C-alpha cells in the first residue's frame, strides 16, 4: 500500500474506490461563500451541475461542470446582476468547469489539484476535504461521499465588481470559498 493510500485509509477508512461514480443531483450541493459588507458571510448555490469520479486504472480523475445561470440567491435582482457581464457573464460563459490533475492525501486530508475555469479563465486550484464510503444503498448500488473546498480570488477570473462602503472597505471580498458536498453513485 502506498503512502497516499495509507493516509487516505487512515482518514476515511477507504482509498479512492475503483469504478465510475456520478453525482446524485438531489443529494449533492455546490456553492460559494464570500464576505459581504466586511462582517457578513454571503452564500449562494448552483442547482444544475454534474460531477464524475473515474478511477479505472489507479489514477483517479474528478471532473465537473456547473451551469453558471443556475446560481440561486434570495433576490432576483441580485441574481440578474450575478448573471450579467459584471459577474459570471453567462451569455458568453455558460459553464464553470473543473478537471483534476491529481488526487492525493496530505496531512490527513484528501487533496484534489485541478484546473478551474470560470468566465473563460482557467487557473490551477487545490481543493481539500475528504472522501467517505463506499456504502451499499437500498437499491443495490454503491455510494461514496466527497466534500471539498477551495479558496479562489474571484478577480483572477474576471469577476471584479465591487463598491466602496461609506465607512471604509468594500461591499464584497475578493476571496471566495467554493464548496461541493457530493454524494456519488457507482455506475453499473
Amino acid at each position, binding site marked *: 500500500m502506498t503512502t497516499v493510500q495509507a493516509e487516505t485509509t487512515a482518514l476515511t477508512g477507504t482509498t479512492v474506490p475503483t469504478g465510475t461514480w456520478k453525482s446524485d443531483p438531489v443529494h449533492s450541493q455546490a456553492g460559494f461563500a464570500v464576505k459581504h459588507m466586511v462582517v457578513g458571510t454571503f452564500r449562494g448555490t448552483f442547482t444544475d451541475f454534474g460531477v464524475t469520479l473515474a478511477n479505472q486504472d489507479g489514477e483517479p480523475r474528478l471532473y465537473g461542470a456547473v451551469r453558471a445561470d443556475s446560481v440561486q440567491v434570495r433576490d*432576483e*435582482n441580485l*441574481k*440578474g*446582476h450575478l*448573471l*450579467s*457581464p*459584471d459577474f459570471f*457573464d453567462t*451569455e*458568453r460563459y455558460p459553464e464553470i468547469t473543473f478537471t483534476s490533475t491529481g488526487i492525493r492525501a496530505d496531512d490527513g486530508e484528501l487533496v484534489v489539484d485541478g484546473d478551474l475555469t470560470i468566465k473563460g479563465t482557467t487557473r490551477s486550484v487545490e481543493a481539500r476535504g475528504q472522501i467517505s464510503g463506499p456504502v451499499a444503498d437500498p437499491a443495490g448500488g454503491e455510494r461514496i461521499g466527497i466534500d471539498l473546498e477551495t479558496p479562489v480570488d474571484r478577480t483572477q477570473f474576471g469577476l471584479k*465588481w465591487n463598491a466602496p462602503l461609506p465607512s471604509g472597505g468594500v461591499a464584497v471580498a475578493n476571496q471566495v470559498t467554493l464548496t461541493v458536498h457530493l454524494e456519488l453513485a457507482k455506475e453499473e
Partner: protein
Amino acid sequence: MRVLGISGSLRRESHNTRLLGVAAKLVPPPAELELFEGLKDVPPYDEDEDGDLAPGGARRLREAIAAADAVLIATPEYNSSIPGQLKNALDWASRPFPDNVLRNKPVAVIGASTGSFGAVWAQAEVRKVLGSIGARVVDVELPVAGAEEAFGGNRLADEELQRQLARILAELVEAAGDRHTIAA
C-alpha cells in the same frame, strides 16, 4: 450592424453630439452609427407610468436600444457626474430588470468636456450604472478635454484621440459581432 449613439447633452451645439458625429465616420463598415434624437422627450422615471403604457418618449428609447446591436454613449460631465437626463434615460432603459433592452448589449462610453479632464468621472459613473443594468460594458474611455478646441472639421484635432476613438468603435463592433456568433 447598427450602433446607436446617445449624446448625454441636449443643447444644439453640444460637443458630445459632435463627438458622436466624428464617431459615425469611424465605425467600421458595414456597421453604421445612428444618432438617437429623442433624449429630451424621455420623461422623469415614474414606476406608476411604467409597463405596457410607458410614455412614448421612454418607449422610443427602449425600442431604439432594442433595435441596435451596440450602443455608444457620449456624456458631458455635470458637477463631477452624469447629466440628469442621461441617467434618467438609463433608468428607463434598465426596466424591467433583469431582462431589459440593455442586458448583455455591448456599450462603450466616451465623453467631452470644456474642462481639462474630459468628463472622465462622468464616463466612469456611466460605466458603473451600465454594469448594474447588465450591459456588456466595453472597458474603455475617451476623455476629450478642452472641447471648444478639440475638433477640427469632422475629426478630433488630437490624432491620438482620433485613433483611440477608432479603436473603441472597432472593439464595440467586435463585441457586438461576438454576440451574434454566440446567438448563432
